[in-house]
């Protein structure tokens, strides 16, 4: 993992090198920055701040993007404007537009307390809301290849995400049972309760008086995350089945790949719980899984050989 992380960090450096070129710009007489250029650069950043706006739908946006890609001086100017506003430029391309995201402590950053009121006081709710976002991303990009492949479009439904997390919790519960662990937490130390239990014991849904989704239920929490990501221009709603179905946008892939995934991974590493992986899928059957005779009725096409 650390390798891929470094790789992104390099790509990052290439994309955002404002300081040294700024000096060389002043040396080049042809590209003196005018107030009009600064205005255009700021305009481009302001387009980037409207994540649902598509470059293909707006001629001015498309034109500014073209200028960014063709004119390095303008690109540096736009990057500088974004950086000054506390934004991080993820990618500038016709498919994603000017993909910017909020830096830490930026005025544009989303705070958990603003996102969900209960989350600021109740650590269980805080965890559930965070987990919902993580689970939506995991469901949208189930394989490492999906996250790496720029052309991949993920699809998910709210109920699907909930069921998938529930299933993961169920398996942890089964494993704990097999090992004879008592997972019921000590009453005086709720913080030590295993995270999966918080999710498992929260109700999946609930009837409400006005037929809306129960906000505190897990489908309510996942549904809120999906709706929020839709407003962020990360998901597009495609239908109502399964509690609401969505597909991902290029921006979401960039955001998860370059920002969120690595940040969460860094936090996990700091907790000292992640075994360093070579990037192959961790969910494949273990290599020592001997060639068990598969059930004839199971209809399996082949024996998957574990990667060497």
């Amino acid at each position, binding site marked *: 993992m650390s390798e891929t992380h470094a790789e992104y960090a390099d790509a990052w450096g290439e994309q955002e090198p404002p300081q040294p070129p700024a000096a060389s710009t002043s040396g080049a007489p042809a590209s003196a920055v005018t107030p009009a250029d600064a205005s255009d650069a700021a305009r481009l950043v302001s387009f980037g701040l409207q994540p649902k706006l598509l470059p293909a739908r707006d001629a001015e946006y498309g034109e500014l993007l073209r200028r960014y890609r063709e004119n390095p001086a303008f690109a540096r100017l736009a990057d500088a404007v974004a950086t000054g506003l506390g934004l991080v430029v993820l990618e500038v391309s016709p498919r994603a537009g000017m993909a910017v995201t909020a830096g830490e402590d930026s005025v544009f950053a989303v705070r958990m307390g603003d996102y969900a009121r209960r989350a600021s006081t109740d650590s269980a709710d805080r965890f559930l809301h965070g987990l919902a976002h993580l689970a939506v991303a995991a469901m949208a990009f189930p394989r490492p290849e999906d996250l790496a492949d720029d052309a991949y479009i993920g699809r998910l439904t709210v109920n699907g995400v909930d*069921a998938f997390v529930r299933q993961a919790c169920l398996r942890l519960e089964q494993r704990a049972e097999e090992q004879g662990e008592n997972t019921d937490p000590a009453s005086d130390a709720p913080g030590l309760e295993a995270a999966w239990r918080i999710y498992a*014991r929260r109700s999946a849904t609930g009837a409400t008086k006005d037929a809306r989704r129960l906000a505190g239920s897990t489908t309510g929490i996942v549904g809120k995350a999906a709706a929020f*990501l839709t407003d962020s221009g990360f998901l597009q709603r495609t239908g109502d089945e399964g509690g609401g179905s969505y597909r991902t946008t290029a921006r979401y892939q960039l955001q998860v790949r370059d920002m969120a995934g690595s940040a969460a991974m860094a936090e996990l590493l700091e*907790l000292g719980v992640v075994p360093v992986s070579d990037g192959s899928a*961790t969910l494949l*059957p273990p290599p020592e899984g001997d060639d068990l005779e598969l059930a004839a009725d199971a209809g399996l096409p082949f024996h998957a050989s574990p990667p060497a």
Partner: protein
Amino acid sequence: MTSPASTDLVPPQLSAAPRPAQGPAADEGLARRLRALACTAPLHDLDARKANLAGEYTVYAMAEVALAAIDLITLNMDFDTGADHEQIVARLLPRVAAQAPSRPAAEHERVARWVLENLINVGSVDRGFRAVYGTFGADGVYTRRDYDFKLIEEVPGYGGGVYLRTTDEAVNVLVGALDTDVTSAQIAAEVKLEVLINRGRLADAQLAAEQARYRTVQYAETLRKTLEATRRNVRAVDWLNAVPDMIAEALDHVADRYRHENAILTNIRKARDEAESTSDAKTAEHKRRAAELVDIVKDCIRRHTQLQSRLLDAGPLFRAEQDRQAFAAPTAYTGLDLYGQLVAPTLPLPVEQAVRVTDAFFARGTGLRTPASVRLGDLVDLLLTPPVEREHLGAEMPEPDLIATPDDSRFSEEQLASALRLLDLEHDAPRRLSGLLAEARELDGDLPYLVALLAVHAASPPVGTAYRQGEERLLFAVDDGTPLDDPEFGGADLIVGTALLDAVGMAADRSEAS
């Protein structure tokens, strides 16, 4: 001043002191039973709290209603949906009503709903129950633990509906076997049933058969959860060992149960038919019970068949997903495995650590929000705007844009009226079609066509309709072989007349027939 003897006495006292616990193994059994006991608490609680309700509700046996509700939900839940909330309330009503027949129906419904809501525990945010119990750990330290459980859970169904399912805990409470292995309990129940039938003790046999059905439902529920996970993500499920094993096990189970239950079915039918040969009150009772038993076992078999078809669907589903995921061109570099490297390691962490990971993901993964800048003028407007009333009736229907279709009927209403007037003949004075046509032609050039049409229809009069509707008159036409001599029409010169029908007699016939 201390005596030396007292210090000598201390060690024996320590060794004789009772041990704090009998060891972890015994304590685990105790914990299991404590949890099982806790599952019954919500039912007792209902009867304890009914006195607090506004009104005189002590006459109702709440625990009985609750057990009946769990029964109904367990029997009504299938693979895809759970039981419908309203349906359960409706089915509970007869039992509630029987407990207090003199009370109004609205009160019965209120009791049914109160019980159901309390089984869901609508008031709590988890919609579940919590019991506290204590255990000794291996190191002898006493720890209090929380046991969270649900009896009825609400699950999302198709079309956004909310359905009810009973949890494993509830099924265990209901069956009464509080901590038993699903498979072995079922086998035991069936062996018991066979023995009982052989000895003719059908009352007990029915009880055992019902228990076997509850077990069947419980087993299906466990399998459904695993299959659902398989559908979602091939990678999330171990398709090399765990799922094929599980499917094989389940198919074995289905085949085994199917054979077994068919054998039982044959046995019960034999018992039922043997009971048929003699005829006293006792054997009649046996016969009735055997028939009920046949129904129950049939239901068991139906559920097994359903389970089997789901199991057989799993393979093709896996292959389709496998095609999509495994046979695509590999990308040049690998990305982050979100599930394997983030979600899976995070879930087993204690929540106070896990929240750090989810917080980091949330902070970087939610994108940006442009902060709203507030102007006092806007704020005043905003605060003074009356809240938008929630639509109870849904979106307003657009006014339909109606286009008058052009009147393309061949004949007008007036023409029809005059044709019918022409054909309104006295019952004892039938007329030739030729005469009618000539008369019609004098009135209107188009009218003969309509008259001819009606006359031809009358050649096969709608006697059946007239009989059902109890009409008194019926237009008929008869061909007596005379050819029609007319400039516009050919064919037979029909005799058109009106027949009088015996409406009273027909009505009597009809009531007799029904």
